[in-house]
């Protein structure tokens, strides 16, 4: 088919708009990564540039001595792994039960799970439940338990399980499989794509969460990465404190560089896994966009 001049102009505008927005989205990350490798004195004089004159790995070298950072990584990895696996397990079981036509309590169960999306008690009662009733403050459980079930993600799973043909389950049951076997051996294996995307969403929630830490954690030994980073946002000195003064570094701690380098290390795993994971996220979102 032939393109008219106006059509060609239109395509050009489309490319231009997308190009500009893409650059707008990625530029801050580029500046940050390059900034973390830039010499401290140049950062202070020239600010962040895409083409710095003097490269330096001083910031990363300094961070090698930071026990607090290793500790933060450990905490974040633990809550992400434990949290994601547990959350996925609980959510998948709940969603399977909610989606099953034989569940005579389907409507009340669904209402019970979706109402919290519309009406909550607010953060004060939530704070009191977690700290005064469950006594979770300053334990790692305060970072894991409150995020175990996200109604939106349960909703994604429910919409998926509804699309699984009933005959599949029935056939297995006629062959003598009980409910547990049907779920673990029939349903779960065919649900891998949705489990992968929901699992990724949970992992992201856990990796990026700092609100639970801010509310319930005072003990620095339990600080996840995000909380360590938050300190540096609010307090310039915090970057220096991250490096123990006894550490054998000859020069002064590069404050700006350390802030940038810590940020890069915090988002590092996401950036590295991102190209592989992105299609799952898109798939998960598309399932959710279809009105259930």
């Amino acid at each position, binding site marked *: 088919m032939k393109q*008219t001049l*106006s059509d060609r102009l*239109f*395509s050009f505008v*489309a*490319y231009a*708009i*997308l*190009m500009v*927005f*893409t650059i*707008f*989205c990625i530029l801050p*990350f580029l*500046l940050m990564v390059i900034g973390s490798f830039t010499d401290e004195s140049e950062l*202070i004089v*020239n*600010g*962040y540039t895409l083409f710095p004159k003097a490269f330096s790995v001083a910031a990363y070298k300094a961070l090698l001595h930071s026990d607090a950072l290793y500790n933060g990584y450990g905490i974040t990895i633990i809550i992400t792994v434990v949290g994601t696996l547990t959350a996925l397990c*609980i*959510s998948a*079981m*709940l*969603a*399977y*039960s909610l989606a099953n036509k*034989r569940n*005579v309590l389907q409507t009340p169960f669904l209402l*019970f*799970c979706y109402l*919290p999306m*519309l*009406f*909550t*008690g*607010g*953060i*004060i*009662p939530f704070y009191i*439940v977690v700290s*005064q*009733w469950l006594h979770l403050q300053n334990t790692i459980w305060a970072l894991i338990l409150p995020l175990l079930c996200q109604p939106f993600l*349960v909703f994604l799973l429910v919409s998926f399980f509804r699309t699984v043909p009933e005959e599949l389950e029935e056939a297995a049951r006629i062959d003598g499989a*009980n409910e*547990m076997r049907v*779920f673990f051996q029939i349903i779960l294996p065919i649900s891998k794509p949705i489990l992968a995307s929901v699992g990724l969403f949970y992992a992201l929630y856990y990796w*990026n969460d*700092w609100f639970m830490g801010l509310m319930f954690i005072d003990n620095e030994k339990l600080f996840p990465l*995000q909380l360590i*980073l*938050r300190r540096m*946002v609010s307090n310039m000195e915090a970057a220096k404190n991250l490096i123990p003064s006894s550490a054998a570094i000859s020069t002064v701690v590069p404050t700006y560089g350390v*802030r940038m380098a810590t*940020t890069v290390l*915090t*988002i590092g795993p996401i950036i590295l896994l991102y190209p592989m994971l992105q299609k799952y996220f*898109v798939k998960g*979102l*598309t399932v959710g*966009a279809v009105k259930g």
Partner: protein
Amino acid sequence: MPNVRKRGAGYKLQQIARNPFLYGMAVPGLLFFLIFSYFPIYGIMIAFKDYDFSKGITGSEWVGFRNFNYFFTSDDFWIILRNTLLLNVLFIIFTTVAAVLIALMFNEIRSKYFKRISQSLIFLPYFMSWIVIGMLVQSFLGGEAPPVNTLLQNLGFEPVNWMFESSLWPWILTVIRVWQGAGYLSIIFLAAITGISEDLYEAARIDGASKLQIMLRITLPLLVPTISIMTLLSVGKIFNGDFAMIYAIIGDNSLLYPTTDVIDTFVFRSMRQLHDFGMSSAVGLFQSVMGLIFVIIANAVTRKMSKESALF
């Protein structure tokens, strides 16, 4: 035929007893909601009490609507209410417009590589925690010589003292919001566009419609139900200032409170710094109730205009 009466309580109990695992599977999830969502709802009564840690929720004294009065008559009330609504309206309008525009443009371009790479990159900010974004904002606008000012000066503009100018922040926050969320939202819209029947486009092309006409007369109108559902979802949260975002970026910079303090950050501060649990709960309750009312009204309005666009 006794089995036909499916609605009886006896039948239900029998069914439950017959499939213990099917119901048992739901138990951990239901327990989660009971503890972390429903127990706090019970705690709402704190809003009507003079809350005392040592006495607990039930032991504290009832004070009627005193907490509410205190909040509604304070000067802060109108400021944080205005900020919450204004910021949300700015966020919703600009993010939606940007996302629709991006989705429409993606639909027009042919190059697969460009599409894939560009999509991955604009989706990336959505994966960052607000703390990371707060750090980026701090690095570009904060400090003694903000890098953005160096750029402004090189272009011949006056430098701006970003961390003092509260009037600029509604717009700065809107730009950040669009940067973070528009790519994500555009993917949802793009998924909806993919669902539009190819026949419609074929027919339009045979009739000699230009690309621009096709976009405005076919793609955009058919996208409206999805746009309205996504907008409804955000309207439901219009009384929730995005705490994670605003606290991560503004933090405790009180110079910026006049335009950026929202209900959520206000509640958090009164809880952590003033230990005023009664009033904070009253504010939280006000927020929940208003949010619920807004969802119901917005849904009813949408339902009137087009049934399929409504949420429930």
